[in-house]
């Protein structure tokens, strides 16, 4: 057993961290405020193989695991560039297609995931089915060789910048995963106004009898549930990584400021009222990172079930860590913490997102209560 990452993983972190620093937090905020995307960052990361680290080598990817992809996501976030679409496109969509897709589907989609030239959103949440996925209503039915999709999804990130969206829909035998190109006829969307400072936007999607070819459903239609679960672990691991990366950024900004700012003759970082909360949060971030790496290691060694528990715990811990980190960083900066110049207030919305998406803190606690502790369920 080893508690240190491999030499290659550490080298990957360093490389991505230096690469991310070239863009940085100011770049990210400026793009978000201007309503623009971080296209050049995404493209360059794609060319360097950072977005395709987990895609199998035979399709042009790096042949690594979700642990490598999570390291990329975390380091970019720590450099000030949390890429929300990394959580869905290469992590959920590419993983599901690589694990369950037909040979044709893999050759069609995976090379684009490998170099980042293809982006795919992921849609499970519905207006009446967020935490409660048993109430999913979007349905897909056979019509001859075709599939016909009908329903509504909401809070779906990035529709305005992707080529296609992987939709969780219900058919007779249960859920299936359907690839819907954004150009499909009958597919429209509407942007949701969000008070988040992020280049990626959220949308409500409308599928009005969208007709899709027979290969639109990923793999075998009776394996849908398995596919959804296979995609959710990487999603949680990535969500946790993005959160711990951003939390590291917040703490490092706070620490730098606490060393420089003097109010009573010594740096404010010498006051335990500021030093202890930062130390505590640093510990919590490290614990969340450790659990995230454990979840990734379990997932990459094919232990889906144990990975599920670890991934949920990691997501929970990371969500708490980022909320506390941004909160304390702003406090450390005093009034400067709320200025546009220092960029901390811009992280506030994002710092709460990790408690809600992709699965809420309460639902993780439900999961742990029922599955790990075998307590009765209340709902």
């Amino acid at each position: 057993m080893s508690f240190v990452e491999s030499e290659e993983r550490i080298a990957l972190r360093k490389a991505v961290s230096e690469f991310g620093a070239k863009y940085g937090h100011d770049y990210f905020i400026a793009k978000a405020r201007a309503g623009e995307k971080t296209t050049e960052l995404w493209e360059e990361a794609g060319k360097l193989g950072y977005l395709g680290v987990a895609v199998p080598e035979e399709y042009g990817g790096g042949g690594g695991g979700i642990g490598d992809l999570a390291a990329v996501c975390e380091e970019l976030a720590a450099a000030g560039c949390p890429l929300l679409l990394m959580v869905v496109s290469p992590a959920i969509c590419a993983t599901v297609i690589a694990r369950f897709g037909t040979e044709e589907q893999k050759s069609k989609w995976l090379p684009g995931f490998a170099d980042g030239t293809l982006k795919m959103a992921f849609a499970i949440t519905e207006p009446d089915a967020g935490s409660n996925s048993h109430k999913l209503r979007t349905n897909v039915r056979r019509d001859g060789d075709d599939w016909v999709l009908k329903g509504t999804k909401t809070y779906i990130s990035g529709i305005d910048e992707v080529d296609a969206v992987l939709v969780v829909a219900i058919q007779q035998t249960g859920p299936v995963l359907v690839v819907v190109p954004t150009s499909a006829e009958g597919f429209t969307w509407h942007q949701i106004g969000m008070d988040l400072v992020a280049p990626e936007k959220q949308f409500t999607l409308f599928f009005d009898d969208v007709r899709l070819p027979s290969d639109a459903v990923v793999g075998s239609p009776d394996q849908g549930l398995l596919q959804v679960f296979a995609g959710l672990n990487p999603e949680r691991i990535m969500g946790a990584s993005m959160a711990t990366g951003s939390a590291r950024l917040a703490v490092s900004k706070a620490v730098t400021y606490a060393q420089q700012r003097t109010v009573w003759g010594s740096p404010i970082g010498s006051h335990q009222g500021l030093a202890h909360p930062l130390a505590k949060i640093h510990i919590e971030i490290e614990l969340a990172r450790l659990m995230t790496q454990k979840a990734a290691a379990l997932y990459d060694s094919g232990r889906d079930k144990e990975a599920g528990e670890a991934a949920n715990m990691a997501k929970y811990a990371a969500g708490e860590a980022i909320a506390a980190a941004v909160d304390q960083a702003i406090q450390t900066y005093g009034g400067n913490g709320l200025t546009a110049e220092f960029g901390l207030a811009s992280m506030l919305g994002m710092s709460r997102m990790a408690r809600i998406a992709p699965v809420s803190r309460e639902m993780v606690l439900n999961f742990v209560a029922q599955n790990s502790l075998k307590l009765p369920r209340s709902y």
Partner: protein
Amino acid sequence: MNIVVLVKQVPDTWSERKLTDADHTLDRESADAVLDEINERAVEEALQLQEAHGGEVTVIAMGPDRATDAIRKALSMGADKAIHVSDEALHGSDVLATAKVLAKAIGTVENVDLVIAGNEATDGRAGAVPAILAELLGLPQVTQLRKVTVEGTTIKGERETDEGVAFLEASLPAVVSVTEKINEPRYPSFKGIMAAKKKPVSTVTVADLGIDASEVGLSGAYTQVLEAAPKPPRSAGQRVEDGGDGGSKIAEFLVGQKLI
């Protein structure tokens, strides 16, 4: 075209660099060690020349065990193989000894057409290794270049100085040194990182290179550091009051500093 790139591991310029109290050599524990930035550019230049002209890129580093990290970085950028000269006896070596060892190490690589070094290391800052090396190897030296091209067996380079730009030429094989203006180094790709571990690195000692240990290291050095003091804290700087001529005063200051 076979290229050797000389890469040095140095303390990160962003961290506080210190000398040890015992023998005034670099306190390697006090700072993060990185591949010298100028050497990243030297590697980049070698890779670009290789892309245009083929051949092999070998990196050579002289330094303690942990210099393998710097070597790995160069290999992950795309260099093909490496030679690591690592020997306790090298501790405290001066510029002459460093150049001597590097010359011998270059001698173990077959059919070298070009040696690329940085113009000066960010820690030692002697800026002398490339020139001494060229003398020892009996090769032409084209130093301090901001641009390098190879045409047939001729190497052409541009050297930028305060007085103007010099256009230089030499026949291959040759030694060149490059400045920070030469290029923007690439980031290692994921495939490059994964491949680096499998690339050959031969670790050699001073004896392997046929050098007597007494010729190198602190005892073999021609100069000696007798005393060292930490640099004084930054002074307050110069304040310019803007009485309408603030702009030209700033320009004057910058001209004085040779910044514009």
